[in-house]
């Protein structure tokens, strides 16, 4: 029964055996859960705001073409250059071309999950452009040569000792004491000149405002503004689903996003970037480029995954997921972990490659409950299971077992006989009222005992009682 793809199975095993990882996961997710709950306790209008935010995002998705064109028109009018990329490779090529045109030797980056998704770090390196991650967690994992393990706290899996060692190895003027404050100051020193000397700054976008062509970034560190103001060129990489109609619509979504992610009302820095530096501005980039990326989103729109396009990347689903809480982000083997990752990864990489992720879920529904835009994650995951079944990706052992069960279940007389025999057979393996080991039940009994059935099924014991008249 246990025919998982070898990579996922191994990654899960490794994660489950990593006690340090578990401490880190718990610290992050338990805190996030508590902070979100506290924020909601202070915001009785949350449920109504959630309905409104859901409606706003639904409205945008239903009118995506309209809003994309409106955004482009207004962005261009404000002096931005808008580029369109059908897929990841396109998007990276556009960014590389712009970096080369700017003569960039190094480019600073503020956090963009979309950038990770399209493989921009690798593309920049391959093009010989030094990539300088400025978000502290992204900086840490860049030094470690790793990928993010959470969309809000990418370095949650690193211990302070590991961070300390990385900084001592790579920083020009590292911390002298082993406290986190000193380490953060070391990063601040290390990155300050990089901010100010980069020819190109690359950011993501939390929202794209259609009526103004503005791009919204939210950070707690202030690195988005330090990344995008000093360089001559600011490049935004953004998924096409990031649109909202206007600034007031963004406020509703920001109220949901930040509380769901960290429990605050707003991040420290919420900035709207509209076009390049203007006549008389004291600072700002000379060029402002926005790369609108499809990379599977129009396919998701077409193929019954429309609701997933509402996602505002808050991370609440993974913070509340019992599976994520055991295996962490890396075990998902892709850019996006947790429930949203289990829906997105098959869409971005194909169900064949990502066949395990939709099944590594109990369908308990907590993710949908905490999603600020009401994405029906369990329904979408079951949809992937359905697709995987129809494409023959389910292991033969599972198919056979389910076929046998269905065969019996469609034949009540046979079912009655089969279950009566099975419960007698099971009793052969019991010790007291429990079964500790039994053929065909290895997956269960390896980890827990199985209650031994009594000698007769309910239907046998019922006899003629309460028979239908």
């Amino acid at each position, binding site marked *: 029964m246990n025919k998982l793809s070898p990579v996922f199975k191994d990654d*899960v095993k490794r994660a489950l055996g990593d006690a340090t990882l578990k401490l880190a996961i718990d610290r992050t997710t338990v805190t996030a859960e508590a902070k979100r709950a506290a924020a909601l306790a202070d915001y009785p209008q949350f449920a109504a705001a959630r309905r409104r935010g859901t409606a706003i995002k639904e409205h945008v998705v239903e009118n995506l073409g309209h809003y994309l064109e409106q955004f482009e028109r207004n962005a261009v009018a404000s002096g931005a250059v808008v580029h369109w990329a059908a897929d990841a490779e396109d998007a990276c090529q556009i960014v590389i071309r712009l970096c080369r045109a700017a003569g960039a030797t190094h480019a600073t980056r503020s956090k963009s999950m979309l950038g990770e998704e399209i493989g921009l770090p690798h593309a920049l390196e391959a093009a010989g452009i030094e990539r300088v991650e400025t978000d502290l967690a992204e900086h840490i994992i860049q030094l470690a040569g790793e990928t993010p393990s959470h969309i809000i706290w990418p370095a949650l899996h690193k211990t302070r000792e590991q961070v300390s060692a990385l900084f001592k190895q790579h920083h020009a003027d590292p911390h002298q004491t082993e406290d986190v404050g000193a380490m953060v100051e070391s990063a601040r020193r290390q990155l300050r000149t990089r901010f100010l000397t980069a020819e190109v700054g690359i950011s993501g976008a939390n929202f794209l405002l259609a009526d103004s062509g503005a791009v919204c970034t939210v950070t707690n560190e202030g690195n988005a503004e330090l990344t995008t103001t000093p360089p001559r060129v600011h490049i935004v990489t953004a998924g096409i689903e990031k649109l909202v109609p206007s600034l007031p619509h963004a406020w509703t979504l920001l109220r949901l996003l930040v509380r769901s992610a960290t429990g605050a009302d707003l991040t420290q820095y919420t900035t709207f970037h509209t076009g390049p530096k203007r006549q008389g501005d004291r600072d700002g980039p000379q060029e402002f480029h926005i790369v609108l990326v499809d990379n599977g989103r129009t396919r998701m729109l077409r193929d019954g995954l429309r609701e997933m396009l509402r996602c505002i990347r808050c991370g609440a689903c993974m913070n509340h997921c019992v599976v994520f809480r055991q295996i962490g982000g890396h075990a998902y083997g892709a850019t996006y972990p947790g429930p949203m990752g289990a829906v997105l990864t098959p869409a971005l990489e194909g169900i064949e490659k990502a066949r395990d992720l939709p099944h590594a879920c109990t369908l308990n529904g907590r993710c*949908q409950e905490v999603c600020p835009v009401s994405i029906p994650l369990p*329904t979408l995951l079951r949809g992937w299971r359905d697709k995987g079944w129809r494409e023959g990706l*389910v292991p033969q052992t599972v198919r056979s077992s389910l076929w046998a069960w269905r065969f*019996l*279940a469609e034949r009540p007389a046979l079912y009655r006989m089969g279950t009566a025999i099975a419960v007698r057979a099971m009793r052969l393996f019991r010790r007291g009222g429990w079964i500790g080991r039994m053929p065909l039940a290895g997956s269960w009994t390896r980890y827990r*005992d199985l*209650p031994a059935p009594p000698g007769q099924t309910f239907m046998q014991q019922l006899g003629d009682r309460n028979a239908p008249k």
Partner: protein
Amino acid sequence: MPDHAPARPRVALFVTCLADTIRPRLGFAALQLLEAAGCDVEIPRAQTCCGQPAFNSGDTAGGAALARRVIAAFEGYEYIVTPSGSCAGMIRAHYVEALADDPAWLPRAKALAARTHELLSFLVDIRGWRPEGVALPATATYHDSCSGLRELGILQQPRALLREVEGLQMRPLTGNDVCCGFGGTFCIKYPAIADAIVGEKAAAIEATGADLVLGGDLGCLMNMAGALHRRGSRVRAFHAAEILAGMGGGPAIGEEA
């Protein structure tokens, strides 16, 4: 009793495959409670499985096939009641999904869904019933199964019923609404992850110091009880319906020798 409840409704009991095979006394407890609540209970002999294993494995056609059988067997009754939030949820919330492309059966699925109830919520919300004269001096903690909680809104009803059991002291379970890791086929496909999840659940149960863990779904209860027993815990597990039916003095799950 709510005004709309008929005098002696004709109720069909859907006992569930797990109760039928592993815990028959739950079926008898459900029967007893429904009769005590003034229902005329019939148990259609054609019943087998609600189709959830197939449906949740992605075999929508298989789930739909079993859904049709359940609809055919049960649609003649005023109510269909089952001692499982997960099976009730399957019928109420998912039969219409499984039969979405079947114009002949979809209306019948919708009709059946509207008349299908999980047992504990049926007793409280529809029959307005409370147990009388049931005593069990013990401490217990309650696990809220995910389907019952999130698909059917079952939270207050089990507690309202158990409150009436004399001598039974309920202790709150930290993370009562957190999944136990059963997830139907999930615990078979991903047993190591399921074990890690139920390990935390078992620790939370033991931390309450309660004698008993109660719930409304056998799958969850078997998972938790099996884990607790493997870990050497003295906590014993019952379905809440068994306690309400006065069977709390009998063998707990895993004690039927």
